[in-house]
């Protein structure tokens, strides 16, 4: 079986309207992939930046997968949430990016988007907060049913991932 190590960190996020952000992340893989060690999902701490507006998490990712097939190459998906001083949580963006398939160190910028409600919903969102969220979070990393969704651009999540591959040449895969 071929093996893939993804070792790196979710560095932080920028471009969001407010700071005090945390990130829920996960790695989705296809049926042929097996997690050998590491956590495949988690949640970062809440960061309040004192200087500037980039929220830094430096959340480590260290996962080891074994696979029998290339289908379902790992996708890292994130949800950026904002926590206000009262402890309420509000969604600030969904995003995903594929894990790089070439070995080495990669700096990734994962763009995010926010579902957009109708204009009465957006008006109440301005005063009260809280907006539409996805019922099925699979939609973050699949494209099959997106055509009815309305979204707006949100900020960017920065990641650094090192990729180590093993035994792929044995199966005739060039990476």
């Amino acid at each position, binding site marked *: 079986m071929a093996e893939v190590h993804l070792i790196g960190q979710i560095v932080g996020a920028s*471009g969001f*309207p407010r700071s005090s952000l945390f990130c829920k992340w996960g790695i989705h893989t296809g049926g042929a992939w097996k997690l050998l060690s590491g956590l495949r999902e988690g949640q970062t701490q809440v960061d309040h930046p004192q200087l500037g507006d980039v929220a830094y998490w430096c959340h480590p990712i260290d996962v080891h997968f074994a696979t029998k097939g*290339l*289908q379902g*190459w790992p*996708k890292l998906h994130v949800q950026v949430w904002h926590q206000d001083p009262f402890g309420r949580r509000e969604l600030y963006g*969904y*995003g*995903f*990016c*594929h894990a*790089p*398939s*070439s070995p080495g160190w*990669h700096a990734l910028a*994962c*763009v*995010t*988007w926010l579902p*957009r409600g109708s204009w009465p919903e957006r008006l109440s969102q301005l005063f009260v907060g809280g907006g539409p969220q996805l019922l099925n979070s699979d939609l973050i*990393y*699949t*494209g*099959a049913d*997106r*055509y*009815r*969704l*309305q*979204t*707006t*651009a*949100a900020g960017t999540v920065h990641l650094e991932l090192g990729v180590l591959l093993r035994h792929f040449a044995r199966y005739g895969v*060039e*990476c």
Partner: protein
Amino acid sequence: APTVFLLMVNGQIESAQFPQFDDLYCKYCFVYGHDWAPTTGLEEGISQITSKNRDAQQALVWNFPIDITFKSTNPSGWPQIVVSVYGPDLFGNDVVRGYGAVHVPFTPGSHRRTIPMFVPESTSKLQKITSWLMGRHPEFTDP
């Protein structure tokens, strides 16, 4: 017997810059030669409708996944991804805002491609006026 090779494409249509338009969605499809066939994944897709953020960035973000694997015996007819972008006009009809295409990269690894987009223009002034009124701008029947 000819040898078969596989090409796995993973990526996303990340975002677009369209200074004049907002509320756009995109469609992608793959075009390939006779010796190619998709084995798994979706050959075409329609994204969500996205709008520009109010701040200075002015980017339209889709973050729309592309996952497909092709099987082939011949590099001729290497797949191209064709992207069409649509948006509403003044009256609310869906109108094409851009077409573009690029070949899937030939070398393994991570690649970033920026695709310039173009729109067909009506050839006569009269057609331009009627298409603006009727909301039926010239479009390609087969992108």
